[in-house]
């Protein structure tokens, strides 16, 4: 699955950050996986558990995954609501066509190293 390639890229980025900051160990990693990113959180965690063990810098790192909501805009009345799961209809006018905005990013937010 593509979660493996994404985690591979993440680990490369962590290694680069550690080198840049002259650190020997990655302690914690926080990643924000948007609800519309097409990334399965369990698979991402699973890939991280496996791939982080293969590297001395990351083998003790713990991963925190957060899931920031997306914004859904109503095509009828323009009302916007933010939700982690697509609402069935607009809470203002009951229209069922809602255009998603954002929520599709996978972001490395924060790294703690020593």
């Amino acid at each position, binding site marked *: *699955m*593509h979660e493996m*390639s*994404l985690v591979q*890229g*993440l680990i490369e*980025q962590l290694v680069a*950050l550690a080198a*840049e*900051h002259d*650190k020997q160990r990655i*302690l914690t990693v926080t*990643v924000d996986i948007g609800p*519309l*990113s*097409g*990334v399965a959180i369990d698979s991402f965690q699973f890939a991280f558990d496996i791939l982080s063990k293969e590297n001395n810098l990351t083998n003790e790192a713990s991963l925190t995954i957060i899931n920031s909501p997306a914004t859904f805009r109503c*095509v009828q009345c323009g009302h916007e609501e933010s939700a982690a799961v*697509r609402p069935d209809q607009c809470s203002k006018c009951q229209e*069922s*066509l*809602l*255009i*998603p905005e954002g929520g*599709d*990013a*996978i*972001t*490395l*937010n*924060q*790294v*703690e*190293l*020593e």
Partner: protein
Amino acid sequence: MCDACGCDLTHTHTHDHDHDHDHDHKHTHNSQVIEVHQNLLAANDAIASGNKAHFEAKGIVAINLISSPGSGKTTLLEKTIERLKGTIRIGVIEGDIETDRDAQRIRAKGVPVIQLTTGGACHLDAAQIHKGFHLLEHEPGGDKLDILFIENVGNLVCPATFDLGEHQRVVLVSVPEGPDKPSKYPKAFISSQVFVISKTDLLPYFDFPVAEAKADALHLNPRLQVMDLSSTTGEGFDAWIEYLTSLHSKNQSTGA
């Protein structure tokens, strides 16, 4: 404030400069928290933008075809090439996990084609397309194209995450797969401009409520352009050809 310990030192600086961390911390730990806030796809997306610029410099519209294995992507391309022969110059980049069978089928239709094999990976990424497009440019006829089709690896999930630099993304679902694909695999439908229901000649043999599948897809993405067609009988093919022709003429009028 420092997230690691709560001290009021500013650790939220960006890290494109050289800095040292010998400031006096009142605590003994020497761990450091770095705010990165970088998209994990940033590297892919940067290459994708480069690809798009490259396509545009050559006046090409690029289309990324995404579907499960066997939905009829290669067959759609074969028929499309036949229909547009002599009017629109087509090139193809084929992505598969193994084998160059799809490229052979396209080459038999007389258009330039490059086969990319991902060696196990379930999607194409922008770097592979960058390489593939340079190879395509050196194929006979590959230097002057109007439309570039990229047939992604047969997979409705993973390819949706990776921008290749395409202008249009087309997602296919064939009648035998059933109508619930949009709800089950939303990302491909949210990120596409066109949804094609393929193999409509098989509708008599499968329970596939076309209107329901279209409504589900539009529910996810109201901007989707939806069409249904059969590559075997040619039914519904005119709308597809019309879509490609108008993409091409729009591109010519803006690109000149």
